[in-house]
């Protein structure tokens, strides 16, 4: 086969999908114009990287021996804008995560991320409901449920009480002896594993789930709930068993954020992963003062998959990684 005959040149999505994506972006932009939320653009490359042990950033070597990282989400840069006084903002941004490839993953993907100043988590969830109904052009069934309720109902385990070894024993009785290798001694990994294996696939079809009240160890960049400090003010959206969005009532405390970064870097070291530069600009921005706000990232490729009933992310992308 000569180069001129290669079969990989055309897009993997249909022509109709090009239009559906364009329409979706128009819908989103019109929605936020009406709400007075400002569209912003931040750099894809940053001197800092996410230190999360489960994220694998692409790095770029510059000629002067400096290293930059492709963002895994636009979160840090957008928070710096919030601290600078931007007010509520949104962005449709390419994000990059190495070695994530499958039916629902491409290493380069598109996020819609938005931050609402003065919103608490339930305000933001209501706005998400509005946006989703607009995108799907129809009424949808929504259900808000706590992480604990769902986890307990479908596995019989209480996520706030359970230990990693309980979770691994549960996976073993279900025939997955390798779970402990996957979860690498981390409770939050164990919870994520059991949730994705034994909870997520059992969610009812055609219902949009808002899962709230994540265990403290899965707080990520969310505030803890003062009224119930074993939980974090974080929510995730699941639709037809697909994880669609992740939102926080944002942590604004610079010291707490600094500690969480340091904890992540310590975990990276324990796991033998490369050391990464934490985002000191974000810490400085938080120290300067970021307004109380809630923010969420929504996977637009997956949203398109759900809107169009397609089976794989390649069906909504022009050129997935193997054709890029």
């Amino acid at each position: 086969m000569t180069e001129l005959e290669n079969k990989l040149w055309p897009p993997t999505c249909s022509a109709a999908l090009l239009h559906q994506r364009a329409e979706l972006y128009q819908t989103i932009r019109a929605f936020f114009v009406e709400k007075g939320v400002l569209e912003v653009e931040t750099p894809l490359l940053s001197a800092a990287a996410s230190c999360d042990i489960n994220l694998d950033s692409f790095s770029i070597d510059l000629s002067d021996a400096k290293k930059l990282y492709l963002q895994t989400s636009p979160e840090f840069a957008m928070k710096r804008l919030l601290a600078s006084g931007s007010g509520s903002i949104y962005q449709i941004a390419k994000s990059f995560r190495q070695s994530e490839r499958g039916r629902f993953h491409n290493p380069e993907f598109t996020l819609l991320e938005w931050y609402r100043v003065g919103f608490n988590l339930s305000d933001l969830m209501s706005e998400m409901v509005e946006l989703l109904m607009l995108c799907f052009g129809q009424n949808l069934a929504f259900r808000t449920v706590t992480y604990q309720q769902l986890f307990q109902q479908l596995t019989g385990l209480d996520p706030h009480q359970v230990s990693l070894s309980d979770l691994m024993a549960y996976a073993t009785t279900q025939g997955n002896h390798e779970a402990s290798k996957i979860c690498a001694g981390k409770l939050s990994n164990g919870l994520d594993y059991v949730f994705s294996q034994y909870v997520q696939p059992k969610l009812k079809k055609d219902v949009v789930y808002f899962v709230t009240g994540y265990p403290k160890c899965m707080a990520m960049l969310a505030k803890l709930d003062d009224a119930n400090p074993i939980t974090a003010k974080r929510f995730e959206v699941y639709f037809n068993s697909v994880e669609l969005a992740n939102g926080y009532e944002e942590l604004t405390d610079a010291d707490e954020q600094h500690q969480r970064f340091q904890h992540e870097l310590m975990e990276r070291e324990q796991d033998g992963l490369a050391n990464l530069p934490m985002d000191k600009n974000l810490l400085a921005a938080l120290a300067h003062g970021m307004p109380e706000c809630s923010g969420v990232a929504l996977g637009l490729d997956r949203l398109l998959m759900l809107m169009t009933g397609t089976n794989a992310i390649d069906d909504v992308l022009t050129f997935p990684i193997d054709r890029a």
Partner: protein
Amino acid sequence: MATYSTSEFKGGLKIMLDDAPCSIIENEFVRPGKGPAFSRVKIRNLKTGRVIERTFKSGESVEAADVMETEMSYLYNDGDFWYFMDDETFEQVSGDATAVGDAAKWIKDQDKCTVTLWNGAPLLVAAPNFVELEVTDTDPGLKGDTSGGGGKPATLETGAVVRIPLFVQIGEVIKVDTRTGEYSARVKS
């Protein structure tokens, strides 16, 4: 020892799992919430035929199984083993009753079978989809009725028993679908 990384997993790949050769049916990459990446894999155990689901840590390597499918001619059986030959290399292999399984009741010498070899020895034998076999015993009394309605049991030259239409008699050759074990047609001699 050849190995495959989870990023190479795809349908049809043959791997070793729990000391048994297995074939991957499908592989799904999972990265839950903010959690660890893994592969959720549906696998068929080629020895037992059982399908199971297992998870593997992303980036983990598993041993490849030396499994290949090849077309071979059936030669004969000596009571314990069934012998097959590669028509190109003339290499012969033998498989026991477990490997030959149901195919044993359909095949006769020179039939072309699909043999799955594991480390060079037959693991599974699939009979041709259709075989032509002579009826060696059936009730001759039930003539006349040609509607083919109920049918009658018949023993074939290999010992297999199938239901055949009433008009087919001892000595005639019939075509059988080995996947369903059903009579398909009478072969004009």
